[in-house]
């Protein structure tokens, strides 16, 4: 029996990958499509799912990092690290957790700036697909608004006719 089979209560990295991806996907669907007025619906993608994914990360990364030949010091070291399926899973779950957390942060701030959900959707999809690209897209938009504008807009300056 291989290490990967007994790894984490008999669930293989492949299966963990599926579970993690589906969980993250659920968070993204909530962020992109569901209303923001219900508090619970914003707590799930902002905290609950990233928290759960981070626990999975801890489980897979901490158990493999110290026994691997590789390290974070060079691209070669990284390649060696990611040769093991467990660490590859950890790396992917890291993306999923952080991207979703950032996505939820973007959604919250975009709501405060009264950015239409139609425009939020591509920013969030971009964050989902290419994390930092979506972040830069939102930060660049936000940069243009002066700090005083942002603050006053927090206190519902926008009139919805």
């Amino acid at each position, binding site marked *: 029996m291989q290490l990967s089979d007994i790894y984490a209560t008999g669930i293989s990295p492949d299966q963990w990958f599926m579970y993690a991806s589906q969980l993250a996907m659920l968070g993204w669907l909530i962020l992109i499509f569901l209303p923001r007025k219900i508090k619970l619906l914003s707590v799930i993608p902002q905290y609950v799912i990233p928290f759960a994914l981070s626990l999975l990360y801890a489980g897979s990364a901490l158990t493999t990092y110290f026994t691997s030949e590789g390290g974070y010091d060079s691209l070669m070291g990284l390649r060696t690290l990611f040769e093991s399926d467990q660490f590859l899973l950890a790396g992917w779950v890291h993306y999923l957790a952080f991207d979703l957390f950032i996505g939820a942060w973007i959604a919250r701030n975009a709501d405060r700036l009264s950015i*239409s959900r139609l425009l939020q959707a591509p920013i969030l999809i971009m964050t989902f697909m290419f994390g930092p690209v979506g972040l*830069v*897209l939102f930060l660049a*938009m936000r940069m*243009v608004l002066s700090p005083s504008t942002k603050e006053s807009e927090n206190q519902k300056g926008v*009139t919805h006719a």
Partner: protein
Amino acid sequence: MLKSMTSFISNQYAAVLFTMDQDHITRLMWMSSLFMMAFVVILMPAYYFDTRLLEGSSVWAKPIKFSLSFAMHFFTLALLAQQLEIKLRTGFLLKLFSYLAVGSMLFEIIYMSIQSGRGRRSHYNLETTYEMLMYILMGVGGTLLVTISFILGVMIWKHSKSKGSNQGLFFGSVIGLVSGSVLTLVAAGYMSSTMSHLVGDTVNNVNNVNSVPLMGWSRSVGDMRISHFLSTHLMQILPLIGWLCDHYRLPAKRVVLISSFILISISLWTLITALLGKPLY
């Protein structure tokens, strides 16, 4: 309290010559403009890292140029829509066509960028069924993008609140938006019907070697994009001329009408020159 708050917010935009209201349609257009500016920011690194060329220029040149012009388009719409009463601006007609235009903008820029990343053409591409379908949809999107400016122009003409006080801005906006939208549709429509923006001996000009710097317009054959560019930017130039006339107390109506005549003539002249297959210079 609330009143002083809203005036405080409007004052934030004084730096851009006009003050803007905070209704959701203004906000939608202004944020669309910001979105497109931000899009340029994420395309620039790709432009510098990527060495692939498409028809002689970087694969990313097209989405960058379109992002910039979409940003300008929606910023113009947001500013000029301020001439309408808030009730009309957020009314059914403008609301419907604003959302359709923003949706079209997103569709166009995202599809164009994906095609750039794949190193394939987005316009005039009938190579696969998918690309043909998307090209047709881009035509629909493009039409919706000038429909909103046309409607806004007509609405300002009928209902502007600054008709009496700011004649320059009023005439500039109406003529600029209406003629700009119509002439853009004519130029773009012609290009799509012939499946090229070039007219003439295009076989020897495939890589567009001899072209105008930055804009990439052909200097060997007729290029419809020149007229497209001038026509589309009538929407900015004419209102700006009008606004300057109001500001400096010049005879606004006369100046705007004369400059409209000159600028529309130039854009028609470049259209005809291109149709004859001749380069501009």
